[in-house]
């Protein structure tokens, strides 16, 4: 391919892309989202933050839309700190988001477990604590492909964010105190497993170049949400074979038995059609049905993307009564509406 040719995107100047996206998001959902602070990177719920309620701040790099600002709204996150494409937001972005949602009883910060996010949220927490705001954080680490279970704390956060954010958001909305919201977010994180597969690369708006190369007939099992290499590259297989591999890895750890309940998320990475996602979900359900495991709730669609990467991930959370009630708690955000 001509070195000069960039991958095609409908954008303006790449350096303005985040500001323009936020302008568009807030403009499209003015009943749910607003921007607060100086940096323009703190997207805050119109309804949600209130005195006496634990504030929920989520965040991470851009390019994963609807994560993270799409989860801001009543019953879910109170604010999102929005980083550059594939780059954690800076402490100043995070501090602005946290200050906007502080209701006097502390803030829980949730993000995917990546070095950049851990470092920036940690620096932000240091600053907030100096200002007298109590902060807890939970780094979502659901990607079974990214490290063995003995090193679970090193695992990446991928689409499992969805369940952890939802459950923490519900707990905060219900008025749970800071330590309990943190514990429930951690419980959700402990009960959640994901694994993905990628078929094609994505390209950063600034470089306009595919961020990895992959053969015309290959897939990468365990690919990360930024195109970080996974555990194996192999010839493309059928949807059922691929789904079985993901489900096997997840169930191997989750240990769900007949009569137990899970919630399932089949997530598209950006360029994968809903037909494919539903074909994958069908196989996940066949597998769970065969085990007698009940699917309490399920979502199929784009919930944590990698720009226009082709591929998908499967996420399951093992539910007890507490987690289930929190998952069912109503919320209203651009990316997710639950309840009536």
């Amino acid at each position, binding site marked *: 391919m001509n070195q000069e040719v960039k991958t095609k995107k409908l954008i303006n100047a790449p350096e303005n892309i985040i500001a323009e996206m936020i302008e568009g998001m807030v403009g499209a959902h003015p009943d749910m989202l607003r921007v607060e602070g100086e940096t323009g990177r703190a997207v805050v719920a119109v309804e949600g933050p209130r005195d006496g309620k634990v504030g929920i701040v989520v965040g991470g790099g851009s390019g994963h839309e609807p994560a993270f600002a799409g989860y801001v709204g009543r019953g879910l996150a109170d604010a999102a700190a929005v980083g*550059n494409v594939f780059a954690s937001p800076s402490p100043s972005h995070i501090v602005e988001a946290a200050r906007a949602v502080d209701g006097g009883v502390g803030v829980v910060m949730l993000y995917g477990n990546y070095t950049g996010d851990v470092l*920036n949220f940690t*620096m932000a927490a240091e600053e907030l604590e100096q200002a007298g705001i109590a902060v807890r954080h939970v780094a979502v680490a659901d990607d079974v492909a990214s490290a063995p279970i003995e090193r679970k704390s090193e695992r990446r956060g991928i689409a499992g964010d969805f369940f952890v954010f939802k459950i923490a958001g519900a707990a905060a909305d219900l008025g749970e105190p800071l330590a309990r919201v943190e514990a429930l977010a951690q419980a959700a994180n402990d009960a959640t497993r994901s694994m993905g597969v990628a078929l094609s690369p994505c390209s950063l708006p600034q470089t306009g170049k595919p*961020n990895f190369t992959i053969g015309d007939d290959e897939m990468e099992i365990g690919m990360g949400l930024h195109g970080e290499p996974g555990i194996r590259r192999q010839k493309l297989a059928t949807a059922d074979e691929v789904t079985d591999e993901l489900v096997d890895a997840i169930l191997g750890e989750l240990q769900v038995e007949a009569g137990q309940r899970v919630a399932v998320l089949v997530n598209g990475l950006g360029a994968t059609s809903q037909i494919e996602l539903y074909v994958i979900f069908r196989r996940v359900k066949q597998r769970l049905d065969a085990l007698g495991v009940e699917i309490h709730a399920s979502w199929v669609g784009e919930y944590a993307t990698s720009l226009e990467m082709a591929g998908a991930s499967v996420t399951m959370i093992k539910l007890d009564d507490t987690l289930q009630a929190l998952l069912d708690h109503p919320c209203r955000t651009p990316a997710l509406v639950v309840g009536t």
Partner: protein
Amino acid sequence: MSEIAARTLARMFERMSEVIEAEKDHLSELDGAIGDGDHGITMSIGFKAVTTALAGMNLETASPSDVMSTAASGFLDAVGASTGPLYATGFRRAAQALSGRDTLDLPACRDMLTAISEGIRDRGKAQRGDKTMLDVWLPAAEAATVAVANNLSRPAFWEAVETAAENGAAATATMIATKGRAARLRERSLGHADPGAVSAAALIKAIASLQP
């Protein structure tokens, strides 16, 4: 002569930004192989922000420590990512090390390099051999320490520092990553140089070319 030292530092950051612009695409490609492909972009945004922030300072009155502090905040606010906290902490630590100093003599340069490497290490909790930028900054700082102890000339000092940095960057290709995004790759990271190490060597080369 605090003007001169502050000016030198500001010039140093300009040179760093230039070298990052020149290496930008290459750094992103290196990051694409074992990470998420944005390292050139984050470094470019970061050092542009630093030069913008420094342009807003009065270098007649600023101390070297002020320059370092301003660089740290400028970098951090604009970048985020992994490199934001790492370099910001390194530069802040350097600001402390340079505090009260008016000249950039070789001991000051040694202390600056040491402070940067320690700041990066303390923030990122990485160790030597983890296949990160630390594998450049730590040996560079050590080389500076040895060079001062051996009373090397200014050119020899910087040559030693630059060589240590280059060797460190090259060595990362033989290491298995255990920190950062590449850590999940394990054996598959072998053979690929670490982008953060390569950019660190480029930064040190840029500083050395000025021989402050």
